[in-house]
């Protein structure tokens, strides 16, 4: 059986033509998950029974001639999205016992469209990490090399799609957590514009940066899923009320005349030469398709990582204050008094990186330091945003690498938080400015995949996906699958 080699678009057509049932498809992927997960650790929870029931319902719906393009297509959800009646851990001991009492909006939307959930994917604890090593459930391994990380924080989703354990998966991106793991595992990932996709039922990390998106085998598959996920949600006060374009229908936009901005600060000296060569080759594909290349400068952009490491921890320290050991989540044994209950429940329930970020955030928000750190970072954030505004006056899309290097070895960056943080140098800017970003595979270095990143203006998802699709019609990097998972 080669069902796992098919794209979401192909599976949709195959289900419509009754070449296979959703139940067969679901069993096929459940079988692959059961075989591969002990090594990859991509899933925290496998929802086999629920998946079979949903697949049967999808088959019945198709038999009635009803359903959507996605009816019966199985996918995986990052374990940050609440799933009604199913454990939602966010990769943390704090929520190891948490059974979500409702569906996140995107889970409900995909469910209503007939999508079958295979399980919940592993992730860095509370989405704080770039290697998937901070998970309470242990690290995820990269299907291209089991000694290497898959990136993070959506590392389980990325590894699952790369190993073809699921045709697509949901993810979230606060500083690069969709795009960076997509790059490190050789798949395609899109972080939409801030506010484009509802965050209701998505466990909060940094509320001015968090956005939900998709990891899949191609830009076309991302378009198919995003069309269903995107849209206004009155239950998320940051959700933007604006029509959702028909992304799959707009994939054919021509590249001729499209102005692609080369971000000077991210393509010059200091970039790993192997990565630089692959990005140049990717840019050459767009030149061949008739795009116009312009150099743009974003001088404040290199400050995006330190800016982020003030803003994101500040917001995280506020958001994670809800975990008090009282209403839900982990509670310590035999608390002496209320203070002891708070301190030990949080001290034992959170892992080292989460505690580090809560403390960083507490410090930068504390009396006497707020102006020097938090307010200052919000001002530099304005400068970064202005850089992007100027760049988009001259360019329709920007191009740069997704990550500075291919996947690194497990343990390599764990002891030095700043080295780990700098891994997100190319992705964080889009989060600070609320912009959509897409990563597409653009080649290999030493057998490991490399990603090319495109960044668009607000709400330019159609253009981004069309550019990704045009690239993927010219190249076949996105079709490569690690030998062990063919």
């Amino acid at each position, binding site marked *: 059986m080669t069902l796992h080699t098919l794209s979401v678009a192909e599976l949709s057509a195959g289900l419509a033509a009754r070449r296979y049932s959703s139940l067969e498809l679901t069993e096929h992927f459940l079988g692959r998950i059961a075989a591969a997960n002990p090594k990859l650790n991509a899933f925290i929870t496998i929802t086999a029974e629920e998946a079979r029931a949903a697949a049967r319902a999808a088959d019945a719906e198709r038999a009635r001639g009803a359903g959507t393009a996605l009816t019966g297509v199985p996918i995986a959800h990052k374990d940050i999205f609440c799933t009604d009646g199913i454990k939602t851990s966010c990769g943390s001991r704090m929520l190891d016992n948490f059974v979500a009492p409702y569906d996140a909006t995107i889970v409900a939307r995909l469910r209503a469209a007939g999508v079958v959930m295979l399980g919940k994917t592993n992730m860095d604890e509370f989405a704080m990490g770039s290697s998937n090593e901070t998970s309470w459930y242990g690290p995820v391994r990269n299907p291209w090399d089991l000694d290497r990380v898959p990136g993070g924080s959506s590392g389980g989703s990325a590894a699952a799609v790369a190993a073809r354990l699921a045709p697509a998966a949901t993810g979230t991106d606060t500083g690069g957590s969709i795009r960076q793991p997509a790059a490190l595992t050789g798949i395609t990932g899109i972080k939409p514009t801030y506010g484009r996709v509802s965050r209701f039922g998505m466990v909060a990390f940094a509320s001015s940066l968090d956005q939900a998106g998709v990891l899949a085998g191609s830009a076309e598959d991302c378009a198919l899923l995003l069309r269903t996920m995107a849209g206004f949600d009155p239950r998320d006060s940051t959700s933007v009320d604006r029509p959702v374009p028909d992304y799959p229908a707009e994939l054919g936009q021509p590249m001729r005349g499209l102005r692609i901005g080369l971000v000077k600060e991210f393509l010059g000296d200091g970039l790993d030469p192997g990565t630089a060569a692959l990005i140049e080759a990717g840019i050459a594909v767009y030149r061949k398709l008739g795009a116009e290349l312009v150099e743009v400068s974003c001088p404040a952009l290199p400050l995006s990582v330190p800016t982020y490491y003030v803003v994101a921890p500040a917001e995280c320290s506020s958001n994670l204050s809800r975990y008090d050991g009282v209403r839900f989540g982990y509670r310590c044994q035999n608390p002496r008094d209320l203070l002891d209950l708070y301190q030990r429940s949080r001290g034992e329930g959170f892992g080292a990186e989460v505690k580090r970020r809560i403390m*960083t955030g507490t410090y930068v928000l504390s009396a006497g330091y707020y102006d020097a750190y938090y307010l200052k970072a919000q001002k530099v954030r304005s400068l970064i945003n202005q850089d992007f505004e100027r760049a988009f006056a001259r360019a329709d899309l920007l191009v740069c690498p997704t990550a500075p290097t291919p996947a690194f070895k497990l343990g390599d960056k764990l002891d030095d938080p700043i080295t780990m943080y700098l891994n997100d140098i190319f992705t964080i800017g889009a989060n600070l400015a609320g912009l959509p970003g897409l990563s597409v595979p653009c080649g290999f270095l030493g057998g490991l995949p490399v990603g090319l990143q495109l960044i668009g203006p607000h709400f330019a998802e159609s253009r981004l996906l069309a550019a990704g699709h045009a690239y993927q019609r010219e190249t076949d990097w996105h079709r490569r699958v690690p030998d062990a998972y063919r």
Partner: protein
Amino acid sequence: MSLTRREVEAIAHLARLQITEMELPVYVASLSKILDWVDQLAAVDTSAVTPMAHPLSGEVQRLRADQVTESDHHSRYQANAPQVVAGLYSVPKVIE
């Protein structure tokens, strides 16, 4: 800038996090390093810059009408609580 043990203990207390004796020196070192590194922002001239509070310029968070739109789910939500007594969240005694 270097944080002292006492400062890190104070931050941990503000954040209601128990930090063990073993963990404390690790956080003193890494938090000091992180703050040193973000200090590079201080060199940027931001005198005429408005701080950015929302990633979409011009957008503000929407308010909703103050109307009841949900039914009572409290027993469902309390199913996740570590300890419930007679429909109430139970914690150690606060007032003697």
